[in-house]
């Protein structure tokens, strides 16, 4: 039985594919995008989160920690990282939910039990399960088993991915997937590397491969002012997509600042600190340009 590492499950997810869905967020990502809105999904290991705002300094966590890694200070409760084993005991007892553990290991059947809770909603709405992240393809074996389990129960399967994986892995996954929500951030490889940490070569070739194999794909373009909203990038994006067989739908996802507080809780730096959300004009300009390529463009998921 495969076990995977996930950091969130969202029910009544209505912007991650058709119908009413349950979205499972896989932990671990090969990228490090400046604007990442799920920073707790980046690392391929559980992480402790701490919110000083919520902490009431009751000391429950300090006294229960089996590794004596915690102490109360003027900045609330501080963790000595070298001692912390990420056992999650502190999160379990914290009454104020100031200490949380991002990332739990879960088996396929246990996860299916949660996904199956809303089957009647999927049936009624043409929805299903969406696997997002992080990058779900990083846990391909777990993902594949999960997809097969959904398939056996007639649950529609979507994957929200950057497409960054080995070809054969991707093809195996594609056989068990009804819909790809495929992220396309930047067409220029150097810039892609600058802002995400990796080149986009593999991504683009995988996208082509998927399209040629007849996979059902919706392209998702996060619109990031100053990074990828320039006419040239949008034009290249549109041109590239329009040459792929069978792809009609593009969703533009406007950058938003909602993740800032998550960086605080993780105590990590936010490279997107100075980024601003796109204006209505910027959004519609990008949408118009993409539409010129005969694509069906939607703002939002």
């Amino acid at each position, binding site marked *: 039985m495969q076990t995977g590492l996930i950091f969130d499950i969202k029910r*009544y997810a209505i912007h991650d594919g058709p119908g009413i869905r349950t979205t499972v967020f896989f932990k671990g990502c090969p990228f490090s995008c400046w604007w990442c809105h799920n920073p707790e999904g980046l690392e391929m290991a559980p992480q402790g989160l701490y919110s000083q705002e919520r902490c*009431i300094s*009751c000391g*429950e966590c300090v006294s229960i920690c089996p590794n004596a890694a915690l102490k109360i200070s003027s900045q609330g409760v501080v963790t000595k990282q070298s001692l912390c084993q990420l056992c999650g005991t502190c999160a379990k007892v914290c009454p*104020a939910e100031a200490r949380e553990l991002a990332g739990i290991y879960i088996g396929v059947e246990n996860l299916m039990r949660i996904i199956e809770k809303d089957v009647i*909603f999927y049936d*009624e*709405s043409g*929805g299903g399960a969406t696997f997002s992240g992080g990058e779900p393809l990083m846990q391909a074996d777990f993902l594949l088993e999960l997809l097969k389990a959904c398939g056996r129960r007639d649950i529609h399967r979507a994957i929200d991915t950057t497409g960054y994986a080995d070809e054969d892995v991707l093809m195996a996954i594609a056989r068990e997937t009804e819909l790809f929500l495929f992220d396309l951030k930047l067409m220029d490889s150097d810039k892609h590397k600058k802002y995400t940490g990796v080149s986009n070569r593999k991504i683009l070739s995988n996208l082509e491969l998927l399209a040629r194999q007849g996979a059902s794909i919706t392209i998702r373009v996060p619109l990031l002012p100053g990074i990828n909203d320039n006419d040239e990038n949008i034009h290249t994006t549109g041109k590239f997509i329009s040459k792929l067989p069978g792809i009609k739908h593009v969703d533009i996802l406007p950058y938003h600042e*909602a993740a800032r507080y998550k960086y605080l809780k993780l105590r990590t730096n936010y490279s997107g600190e100075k980024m601003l959300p796109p204006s209505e004009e910027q959004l519609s300009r990008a949408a118009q340009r993409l539409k010129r390529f005969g694509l069906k463009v939607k703002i939002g998921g």
Partner: protein
Amino acid sequence: MNERIQRLRKASFEAEPLISIERAILETEFYQENFGKYSMPVMRALFFKYLCENKTIYIGEDELIVGERGPWPKAVPTYPELTCHTVADLKILKTRPMTRYKISEEDIKTYQEKIIPFWRGRSMRERILKHVPQQWKLAYKAGLFTEFMEQRAPGHTTLDGIIYQKGLLDFKGEIAKGLAGLDYQNDPEAADKAEQLKAMDIACDAAILFAERHASLADQMAAGGKHSPRKEELLRIAANCRWVPAHAPRDFWEAIQMYWFVHLGTITELNGWDAMNPGHLDQHLLPFYEKGLVEGTLDREKAKELLSCFWIKFNNHPAPPKVGVTAQESGTYNDFTNINLGGLKRDGSDGVNQVSYLILEIMDELHLLQPGSSVQISDKTPDHFLKTACRVIRKGYGYPSVFNVDAVVMEQIRVGKSIEDAREGGCSGCIETGAFGKEAYILTGYLNVPKLLELALNNGVDPLSGEKVGLETGDPREFKDFEELYAAFKKQLHYIVDLKIRVNNYIERLFALNVPAPFLSVVIRDCIANGKDYHNGGPRYNTNYIQCCGIGTITDSLSAIKKHVFEDPTVTMEKLLHALATNFENQKALRLLLQNKTPFFGNDDDAADTIMQKVYQSLYEAIDGKPNTKGGEYHLNMLSTTCHVYFGRMLGASANGRLAGHPESDGTSPSHGADRNGPTAVVNSLSKMDQIKSGGTLLNQRFLPSILEKDADLEKLVRLIRTYFRLNGHHIQFNVVDTETLRHAQTNPAEYRDLLVRVAGYSDYFVDLDQSIQQEIIDRTAHESF
């Protein structure tokens, strides 16, 4: 909205509710002269006739549908035979900050000199409160239950389609037949029936006379002057009033006027709860609408104008003033008329028609406080209708609410109604199930379920007053397990429910004997055939409901005690009781533990949901099937209206972390902020309640306007509703929240854990967002509001 409707709507908005003492004066005069001369039904009918002959009548400029309960719009009469307001009451009504009613000092003086001296000791309210046992008084004072009939008459009445097929003259014919057929030799009740039937006959005459007075007034207003469109209208109004309610209506305009006269008759005769309700108005009006279109005497715009005029008439009739506990359980001007759209027809086919859409359009344009409307959705209802309704919902007026007809039918079949009568039924007031036109289904009062647990935790003593109002069920510190605590709760429950029913049955007889409703009895099926009054078991079906409040609060509280005191044991009963008694003072960590580490109802978590099922089953066993005095039974109902606020005020801190005095959970909704897994989890939790065994449940869901902005999002809302209904949910309504709520959510995040907002391309929980994003959403919403 045309100019006429704009003017009428504005006038209705601007008119201030005020008290008219005209009815009280006429009633006092009449009683002083006639009390004791006639049988009670006949005397009540003669009084009704006296009112119809003498009350001031009113036809407003621009009006197409005529008739007012008071002397003019928003003037509300009093009903001293039910509640005789004291001078202090009238002064409070005049000055209280909410739901105020104007009254002049001169009228207060008249009340003091003429009305109060006669009715003192004679009003229903005083007679009830004088009679009730001490235990009842203690429990009532402690806020364990409310009593609907201490200020208003049993009502909650909705009509079926009979008044569009028969005029009052036809009913008079049936009454005459009934009188002629009485078997004085073999039926010991024949003499009583004769008095009741005579009273119904007089009541018909009274209503016809009332209409004729309007005809004469319209004629007078039309007389003289030269030809004008208004003159034509007034002449048409006069003709309408001469035809209905004496005869069955012949066209759309007459049909609406017919209903309105019947409506006015019932709310003038007595002050029944929830005013009166046309029920399936769209189905009733359809034949007249179609006929008018075919004959060319009506077009869509004209129909819309007439319906809009009708809508404004409802808005002109605020609820009669309530005082004391009743004002707290239901502090609103809204008098709860709930027009049902769509639904099923008697033969089981889909009831949606052109008039249903027309009415949705009117609701959207007028957005008035009254009348309330709901859409009745069955498996057969087209999605287009539900989607159109959802487009109105997303405007954020809080209506229409959405009902599951298939569940409503099953609820009625369960209690023995015929399938056809059940389909013709629906939901009135807030969410109450009934067979329209054929049933007296009476709300008797709310039950404060979390307070019963408080009694069990305090050995029968109300910690707020220190008085013993419940049973001695033992010291909870000595309870060995959860089941012992639960048994104590159940004992309190049965004790209090029995107390309530005992008094309710007494009140029912008081109403049957002293304030029968002969006019209402004419239009409710089988009252004529049975020769019995609406209050006396005359209707085909007779149901009493007890409305159980706070299922979320009680479930979460029991769940917290089960987990933290008995299962994990992290908290001793002693420590918990102390924390509750001191309102969690200096117990922040304990309170957060209870709030954050307890399985709560509304999360699709069986640990909590099985407790909800257990409590629900106990409520069902305590209430369902107990006989009332009218040949019917008590059933449970899961409505709270605004009583959860009053009950919360009467409740100390609770084990789910709720502070003393704070509201309880509303209807069957999860406690505020308890549901953290989104609407599908809420729906799944609710579906574990066997709702078919109730007479209605109420689920409130909060959404931000922006989450329903796109048609694709709306489609998902439609699917959410359909799924809830597949799972036998009875009702769902949506609060598309406003800025004020969001501001409150910012400062009190714990109460708003469940508030879903659309951030940008995705949705998230509002309280999980950082301040600046919250502010951005608040600003955005403010721009969107009208």
